[in-house]
């Protein structure tokens, strides 16, 4: 991998930018790999990267049925934060946060991680009690978290509607200063380039159609590009988790729903932080390109169509307009949807499946992007050693049998 630097920029400028090295190869599949990662999104590519970097396992293939980052990684609203309530999830998301903080340097790829803060608004007494509890829980876990008053919110975000006679007035908020946004495509490409440089094969247009097993152990996968053997297979495919698990005869507690988002026309900088509201449902930030990036709750029906109903868009924009009257004339440019794999407790499933050598990383639902590096890091550990890391051990599939669910619907911040 030729390092990106001011020197490489100058050197390539001298040859009219015609000699930049390809960021990743497109090799033919080998007949066998030490590990196969099914799913070429941010989480899958991060898994492959950390398998190579942290565990020295580089004879790895990432199989992606479309193009890398074309699924939820390319469709989210780019928010990064770690202010979750329970110890187990707080530690997992904070692991991701700490990786985010060095990621551009580590990958030698600018993921545009902007720690502009994330604000979660409270609109009634119960919201404020929940927020106060979560802020304290965060602080006890060493995660930066502040409690804001209405005046604090209005001072930090002058354009917000802080009127106390609003239908759902802002009574306060939680604020995580280290939270913010990152460029989602850059995350996929950065991890892909880093993984490829360490010997990982990234195989696009390679759809897994079957998981071959012998004596209760995985031996490889059938794909649209032929059979590929491996004794370690990690499924990390978000919305298609049930489909892939079904190929191994495994049922999951996951339901796939559409999740929509939209962006506005580019505007001059007007919103300098990320605002999320559970009650007045919507979340918003402004990209470096100037677009307002707005997200919604899920469509309530199951859907793999990567699109949802317009009523969701209408009610989300109404919420945004209620919070930011100044945006009432802004034109929306583009809207789309992804497929989110929703779990009953709004927490992921990261661990072993009841087939030897088969691992799953799924159920991140509406909140996977922020966890991308952390998710890949713990999944790589799990696959390399055959056992979960303490950070992802609580997130086993078995918790649905033992009852040890970890309920993060509140901190998830997205209506289910």
């Amino acid at each position, binding site marked *: 991998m030729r390092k990106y630097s001011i020197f490489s920029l100058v050197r390539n400028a001298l040859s009219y930018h015609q000699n930049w090295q390809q960021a990743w190869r497109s090799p033919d599949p080998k007949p066998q790999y030490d590990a196969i990662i099914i799913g070429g999104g941010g989480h899958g590519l991060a898994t492959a990267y950390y398998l190579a970097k942290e565990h020295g396992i580089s004879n790895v293939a990432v199989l992606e049925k479309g193009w890398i980052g074309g699924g939820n990684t390319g469709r989210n609203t780019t928010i990064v934060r770690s202010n979750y309530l329970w110890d187990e999830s707080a530690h997992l998301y904070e692991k991701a946060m700490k990786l985010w903080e060095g990621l551009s340097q580590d990958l030698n790829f600018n993921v545009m991680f902007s720690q502009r803060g994330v604000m979660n608004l409270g609109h009634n007494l119960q919201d404020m009690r929940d927020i106060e509890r979560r802020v304290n829980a965060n602080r006890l876990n060493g995660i930066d978290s502040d409690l804001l008053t209405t005046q604090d919110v209005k001072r930090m975000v002058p354009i917000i509607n802080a009127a106390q006679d609003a239908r759902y007035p802002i009574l306060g908020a939680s604020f995580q200063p280290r939270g913010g946004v990152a460029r989602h495509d850059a995350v996929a490409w950065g991890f892909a380039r880093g993984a490829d440089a360490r010997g990982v094969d990234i195989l696009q247009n390679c759809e897994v159609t079957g998981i071959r097993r012998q004596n209760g152990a995985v031996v490889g996968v059938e794909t649209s590009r032929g059979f590929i053997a491996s004794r370690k297979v990690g499924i990390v495919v978000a919305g298609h988790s049930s489909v892939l698990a079904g190929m191994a005869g495994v*049922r*999951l*507690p*996951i339901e796939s729903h559409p999740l929509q988002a939209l962006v506005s026309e580019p505007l001059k900088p007007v919103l300098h932080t990320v605002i999320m509201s559970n009650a007045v449902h919507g979340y918003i930030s402004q990209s470096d390109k100037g677009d307002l990036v707005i997200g919604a709750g899920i469509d309530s*029906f199951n859907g*793999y*169509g990567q699109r949802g109903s317009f*009523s969701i868009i209408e009610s989300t924009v109404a919420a945004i307009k209620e919070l930011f009257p100044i945006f009432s004339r802004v034109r929306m440019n583009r809207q789309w949807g992804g497929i989110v794999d929703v779990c009953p407790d709004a927490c992921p499933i990261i661990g072993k499946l009841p087939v030897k050598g088969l691992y799953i990383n799924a159920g991140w639902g509406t909140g996977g992007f922020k966890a991308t590096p952390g998710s890949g890091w713990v999944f790589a550990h799990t696959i390399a050693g055959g056992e979960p890391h303490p950070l992802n051990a609580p997130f086993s599939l078995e918790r*649905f*049998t033992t009852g040890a669910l970890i309920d993060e619907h509140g901190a998830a911040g997205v209506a289910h």
Partner: protein
Amino acid sequence: MLLIECPWCGERSQQEFTCGGEAHIARPAAPDALSDADWADYLFMRKNPKGRHLEQWCHTAGCRRWFNVARDTVSYEIAHVYKVGETPPGVSE
């Protein structure tokens, strides 16, 4: 936006309805006799198919009755609407 034909009220906009998830999940007759794994399967595990899905919907802003829908989760096309207790054509239960 889906157009859903309520068996009692006729064709109405999706906004009038609430989706109740996967249909035909029978509550076990003797929960105490089940293992934790079987109980977990009933409570949490779902088919979540990419394709034909049998679901339950409630006409919350209308007659407030529950009914079943056979719908494709990729195209969102509704193949059949049928009342609780009926079997949709072409499906073996």
